[in-house]
């Protein structure tokens, strides 16, 4: 027997161990894409299903905690897992994470999870917190290579300054993205000097690219963040569950920067406007003041005139003959020569008298 020299004889247990060692070495993590079949959950804990295509079917096994988006038979999914040969159950792939793929499966999974989390109140408006008015410390979670990140930083720097921006570089698509984003969220939430707001941004993409943001654990982590969250994923028409769980939802990464800080150019214009607005205000106050002063001067002149008229009237009253008669004096009319007749007018009567004598004083 020529083959005797290369033949390895092993116990069953050793064989299982060797196969698993080989799997681990050759495939520490493999993503398998296929259609879900025979999906079932036992004791509320253990999940089993097959992934199949036209020719083959493979068993998958894991815990419910690894299934972060609702699954159903017929869905197309990508499973990150480790092939294992169990000493009791035979061959299966241990599930690490699962993501629906293809528009139909993503939509169905999205709807199922939306219904579930909405029923729990995760998206309630009452849970939403306002963003800080002018943050000085910002935590950003994104891929630094992504176009969406570049847009966000460009708009942010253009609009406002003086902020400390810490960026956690993570995957923003694919099966490993939700786990990385969750760890980045934890990092900011547990930081000694935490940011005032956490911003999660990612540019547009097809539904497969954005599926990471419909991951149940990620959506829950966003909703549970102690620090207010602002999420801007994809284009305006894209809606992910991460968007719905955020305190504030931005339509795009650029819109996230617009919602976060005011535009310095607007503020410059506003401060210029305030100063320019003072010119007409000052003119109108000046005119009012002049009018007031001129009105006061006219009133003064009228008062002086009134006084003058009063004085004159009083003086005139002094010279009124009736006033003189009232004081006991008499008026004498006629020629004051001896033998002539004169008229003496007093207050009460008029006397006619003959002049008897005229003397020089």
């Amino acid at each position, binding site marked *: 027997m020529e083959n005797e020299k290369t033949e390895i004889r092993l116990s069953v247990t050793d064989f299982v161990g060797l196969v698993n060692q080989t799997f681990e070495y050759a495939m520490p993590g493999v993503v398998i894409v296929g259609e879900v079949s025979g999906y079932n959950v036992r004791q509320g804990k253990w999940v089993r299903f097959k992934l199949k295509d036209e020719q083959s079917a493979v068993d998958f096994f894991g815990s419910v905690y690894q299934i972060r988006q609702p699954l159903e038979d017929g869905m197309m999914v990508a499973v990150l897992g480790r092939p294992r040969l169990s000493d009791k159950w035979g061959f299966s792939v241990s599930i690490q994470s699962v993501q629906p793929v293809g528009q139909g499966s993503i939509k169905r999974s999205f709807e199922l999870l939306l219904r579930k989390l909405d029923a729990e109140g995760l998206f309630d408006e009452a849970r939403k917190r306002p963003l800080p008015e002018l943050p000085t410390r910002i935590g950003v979670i994104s891929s630094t290579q992504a176009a969406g990140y570049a847009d966000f930083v460009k708009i942010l720097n253009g609009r406002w*300054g003086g902020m400390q921006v810490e960026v*956690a*570089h993570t995957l923003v698509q694919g099966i490993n993205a939700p786990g990385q984003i969750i*760890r980045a969220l934890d990092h900011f939430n547990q930081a000694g000097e935490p940011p005032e707001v956490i911003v999660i941004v990612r540019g547009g993409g097809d539904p497969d690219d954005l599926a990471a943001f419909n991951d149940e654990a990620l959506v829950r982590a966003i909703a549970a963040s102690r620090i207010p969250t602002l999420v801007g994923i994809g284009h305006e028409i894209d809606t992910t569950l991460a968007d719905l769980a955020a305190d504030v939802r931005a339509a795009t990464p650029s819109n996230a920067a617009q919602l976060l800080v005011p535009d310095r150019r607007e503020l410059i214009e506003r401060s*210029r406007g*305030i100063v320019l607005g003072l010119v007409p205000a000052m003119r109108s106050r000046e005119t009012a003041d002049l009018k007031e002063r001129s009105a006061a001067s006219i009133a003064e002149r009228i008062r002086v005139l009134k006084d003058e008229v009063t004085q004159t009237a009083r003086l005139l009253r002094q010279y009124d003959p009736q006033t003189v008669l009232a004081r006991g004096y008499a008026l004498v009319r006629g020629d004051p020569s001896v033998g002539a007749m004169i008229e003496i007018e007093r207050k009460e009567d008029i006397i006619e008298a003959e002049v008897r004598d005229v003397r020089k004083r």
Partner: protein
Amino acid sequence: MSGKGKTIEQKMQELRELAGWFESDDFELGSASARFEAAAKLAREIEHDLSEMENTVTVLKQSFEQS
């Protein structure tokens, strides 16, 4: 009215208060010109501060891949 050490929000508030004086009963023509000058100076300071301020962007070295 030096603006040193004040934040932009504080300066904006100060500018609004200065502008408010022109509409208030405290307005007095004698000191209007000086107050106008102060407001214009403050606006120039705000514009300068806003134009100069820059963000510090730091990408964390930490990896968020599963260990």
